[in-house]
Every structure is written in structure tokens, then in C-alpha cells.
């Protein structure tokens, strides 16, 4: 499994949002409250955040996304920025960059931590 490139920032600068994937099945009977069941014994997490990168780092990320991850269709290993454990992730969406200054970009990524 490809590793998150070492030349890239290893943690987002700000706005790291993490939400466990809903892992509950529900059934609404005709009368009374719904019934709930756990769907699987493990679920993933949806994460998003913003990195600040230079132009070179942005090129590295785009190359990593396109070539190593086959346009984001493959998982990659990365140290979770919150609990610092090596985990498997997949891109939920293609990385989005906004030029903030000369050679400085805000890069927003949305990933899924796999169960």
C-alpha cells in the first residue's frame, strides 16, 4: 500500500473534521419507535481538513493522487493526525487547492479512514 509522501506535511494545519461513519440499520414499524441494529463490527471515519503547501508539495500530492493512487481509487497508509496510529485511508474526493499567496496554497482534502 502506498505511503503518504514524506515530503508532504504530515498533518493538516487547521480544520481537521472527523466523523464516524453511521453504522446503524433502522427499521420503522407502523406503530412505535424505530428498531435499531448495529450493521457491522467495524466502521470507517470520514475526515477532512486543510493543509498549507508550497507549489512543489502540491505537485507531489497531485502526482501521488494521480499515479500512485490511480486517481484516488487505491488506499494509502498515513499516520492519523489525531491518534498517531498508522492507518489505511482513501480519498473521498479529489484534493482541492486554493492559491493564497505566491507559491502558497491551501489544499483541502477529504479522506475516509478504512475500518
Amino acid at each position, binding site marked *: 500500500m502506498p505511503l503518504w509522501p514524506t515530503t508532504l506535511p504530515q498533518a493538516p494545519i487547521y480544520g481537521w473534521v472527523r466523523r464516524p461513519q453511521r453504522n446503524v440499520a433502522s427499521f420503522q414499524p407502523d406503530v412505535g419507535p424505530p*428498531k*435499531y441494529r448495529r450493521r*457491522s*463490527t*467495524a*466502521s470507517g471515519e470520514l475526515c477532512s481538513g486543510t493543509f498549507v503547501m508550497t507549489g512543489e508539495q502540491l505537485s507531489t500530492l497531485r502526482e501521488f493522487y494521480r499515479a500512485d493512487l490511480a486517481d484516488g481509487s487505491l488506499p494509502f497508509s498515513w499516520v492519523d493526525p489525531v491518534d498517531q496510529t498508522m492507518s489505511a485511508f482513501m480519498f473521498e474526493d479529489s484534493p482541492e487547492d486554493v492559491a493564497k499567496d505566491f507559491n502558497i496554497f491551501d489544499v483541502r482534502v477529504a479522506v475516509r479512514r478504512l*475500518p
Partner: protein
Amino acid sequence: MPRQISASFRRSVESRAAGDVDLAFLTISHPRLIEPIRLVSDTKDFTRDGARFIGFPFDVQLLSDDDHPPKAQISFQNVDQSIGETVRGLRSPPRLKIELLSSADFDLGVTPRVPLGTPTVEYTADKLFLTNVAVDALNVTAEIVGWNYLQRVWPGVRATQDLLPGLFR
């Protein structure tokens, strides 16, 4: 015919909210398959009786239980196309076994999941066949049918003119 299920599983099924997962274990076998295909309806792999069941979310119905031969449907996403292609490549219907177990009988802290003691099989449907397998880029769907005793010849051997011509002189 009454079906025996454990008291804890019954409590879990009948409760309004339950934290245990009802796991469907599938075993697909065929003489042309070197190893049976073993799947479990979960995101993690499971080990049972020395065999590894691949975690693979799918939808399976319980078999009908009326006057007609048992019947149900199964569908799963064709993400790992090897399963769909393997099943479709078989010339005769593969055998299928469905077992229902509770996640409460497994250690959920390890991967693959391993049993805590001897897990209780709450429901078993064996001697089934997968027919009408339809495979496309996204989904694999198939019908599950049971052995249809109504279509079997009984008695197995009949005193017909072809078999016993001396009786018809």
C-alpha cells in the same frame, strides 16, 4: 417445525435496540473450485474452524418457509470482480450454505475476528444452489434455491417397458 435458537440471540433480535451484529456466513462450493468461497457480511474478516471468511458486505434474504421449495435472493457489490467471475464461470450451479451467528460470540478486538469459545450457529440453511447468476459491472445477483423434492422421481426405478421388456410381452 420448531427452530432452536439461543435465549441471548432471541433477546437481541426482539429488543428495540441491539449492539450485536447478526452475521451471515456464506460458503460457496463446487467441484471445480479448489477451495470454497467463504464470505461473511461484515467489513472485517472472520476465522471459524480454521477457515477464513472474507468480510464482504452483501444482502441475503432468509429462505422462504412455506409449502413451496425454499427460495431467496442474494446480491452483493461486484467490487472484487473475482467472485462474480468465478461463480459465473461455473457450468453447474454451485452449492451454498448459509449460517447466521451473532457477533457476541467473537472477539471484536482483533482482525481477523476469532471465536470466543464455541460460537452458536443460530440458523443454518444447507444444500442450496445458486442459480440465475447475473453479473454486471456493479452488482452480482443470484437466486438461492433449495433441493426440490417435488420434482424428483419416486420410486427411483420404475418397471417400464424399456427397463423390463419381459413384463410387457
